[in-house]
């Protein structure tokens, strides 16, 4: 118990010390790096995952491939992938981004696909029957109805990416992982715990952000439980 309190005080001291908040290698710079890697990889992953998830979900063609790709992608260890790509491509931002994208695509792809495929066939039939084009069926009916699952996929991906972006520090690319890597090599546990805390806080903020987003953009008609009038 004392040990825990002690550590909490250490973290507090570390976070409060003004030197951490200024200049090269300070928290703001590391945070910006971290957010850049996370944001970029999430953006690419969303483009790939949403586009293919919507396409396969709407047409029903290639469902088997989606399941296969997603399972395969999830089986690949992120850290291993970073090392592999760094070895092959050299030290740069690319390998880190590739690894993070590979990590983020499966949850987005799978949830988007399931969301669209899960739309009631009668609703889809009605959408076509009232005269919607295929594009209108997708955009006006399937996407809004799949939105809860699409957001779930994006949220899982975002949290995983934010947590895993710490690996960027290994090939020397900064981010919040820098504190952890440096702390470990210097046996500076204050630094390790401080860095980890920042990552955890960031992940929580992502979670809160997505909950707010869900409230704002998912139709109440999909949220309210059925009750008789």
């Amino acid at each position, binding site marked *: 118990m004392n040990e825990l309190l002690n550590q909490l005080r250490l973290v507090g001291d570390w976070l409060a010390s003004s030197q951490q908040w200024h200049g090269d290698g300070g928290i703001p710079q590391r945070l910006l790096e971290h957010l850049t890697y996370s944001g970029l990889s999430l953006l690419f992953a969303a483009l790939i995952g949403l586009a293919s998830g919507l396409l396969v979900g709407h047409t029903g063609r290639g469902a088997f491939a989606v399941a296969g790709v997603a399972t395969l992608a999830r089986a690949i260890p992120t850290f291993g992938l970073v090392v592999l790509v760094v070895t092959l491509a050299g030290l740069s931002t690319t390998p880190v981004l590739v690894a993070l994208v590979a990590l983020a695509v499966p949850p987005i792809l799978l949830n988007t696909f399931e969301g669209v495929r899960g739309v009631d066939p009668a609703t889809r039939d009605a*959408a076509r029957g009232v005269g919607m084009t295929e594009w209108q069926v997708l955009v006006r009916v399937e996407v809004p*109805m799949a939105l809860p699952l699409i957001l779930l996929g994006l949220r899982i991906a975002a949290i995983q990416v934010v947590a895993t972006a710490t690996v960027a520090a290994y090939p020397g690319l900064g981010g919040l992982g820098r504190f952890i890597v440096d702390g470990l090599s210097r046996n500076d546990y204050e630094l390790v715990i401080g860095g980890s805390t920042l990552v955890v806080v960031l992940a929580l903020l992502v979670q809160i952000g997505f909950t707010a987003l869900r409230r704002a953009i998912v139709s109440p008609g999909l949220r309210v439980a059925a009750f008789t009038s």
Partner: protein
Amino acid sequence: MIRFHAVSKNYPNGTTAVDELSLELAEGGITVLVGPSGCGKTTTLRMINRMVEPTAGTVSLRGRDIREIRAPELRRGIGYVIQHAGLFPHRTVLDNIATVPLLLGWNRKKARARAAQLLELVGLPHEMGRRYPNQLSGGQQQRVGVARALGADPPVLLMDEPFSAVDPIVRTELQAEFVRLQKELHKTIVFVTHDIDEAIRLGDHIAVFRTGGRLAQFDTPERLLAHPADAFVAGFVGQDRGIRRLSFVKAAEVPLRDGPVLPATAPVERARAAREPWVLVIDDERRPLGWAAVPELPQSGTLADASLLPLGPTFSLVADSARAALDSALLSPSRLAVGVDTDGAVVGVADAYELSATTVAADAAETEANEDVEAAGDRAGAGSAGGGEG
């Protein structure tokens, strides 16, 4: 209006959903497609708005081959109602109804105003427009489905078992509403059901399909009940088609007699003199009071002294059918139906046997009419009188 010419639908696995169908549906009426499951009635319906494309033959709408029209455009001009309503759960009731107007490019305000108007037309309160479909009962959802189909005021309405997913009480209510709406709107409606009672209640014309997608008979409900084309149709129409036929005979055509109808002031001797087992006692405005059993009448006095049995239901000569008259006869203690006019005054009575004479008369009239038609030659167009080939 809607014409099927030698239309077939075959699936790659070898099943035939519709087989060489030729049919012409009149403008402004309700045509019901009915038959057992797998008879191709829904497929036939869905070929009208190109939800299903025929393998062979042509479907035309107002003389135009529907393949010339882009499917989404065609569908926006045809109302479509399906079994579970198929409402969009993420849209409010009002926005569901406004779907087609919005697809047609109306501005949002005009589309919403139109939707509010339709909400009222289908008998739902204005506040319900702001709700979401999952806050509505099945019957209410179905009403919204009908309102959505009427969005852009299409001349044609396709309805695929629209009332079969709701409970019987709500179904009867929706059917009555539907009949009322149609009286107001005069749409050309194609209606699919597997329920022959519903078909007879709603249809101006009925197309009976048999398994394998073949048309067994296309006729008016009256003629379908009176002259089923073959054993299949007779079996499908049901055992009690004789009774159902009475629905199409107006009660005014029922022959009535007033021998057993006597005022309460009449002496009991007059009742005995009528040589009837029962007499109907009426007041001085000819309103029925009840039945008196003649053998149990008091020795003397007037009928006012007799103990009366309750009347049972009467039937209106103006509003009811011979079926209501038969019902009245069966529920009456005397087995006599009591016919009343608009003021509730007794016109006369008839027993079940006398009631059945109405269909005999109808048959005779029809046979005569048919002979006239046949004498005039066989050039009569498809659709009206002649039955389709099985």
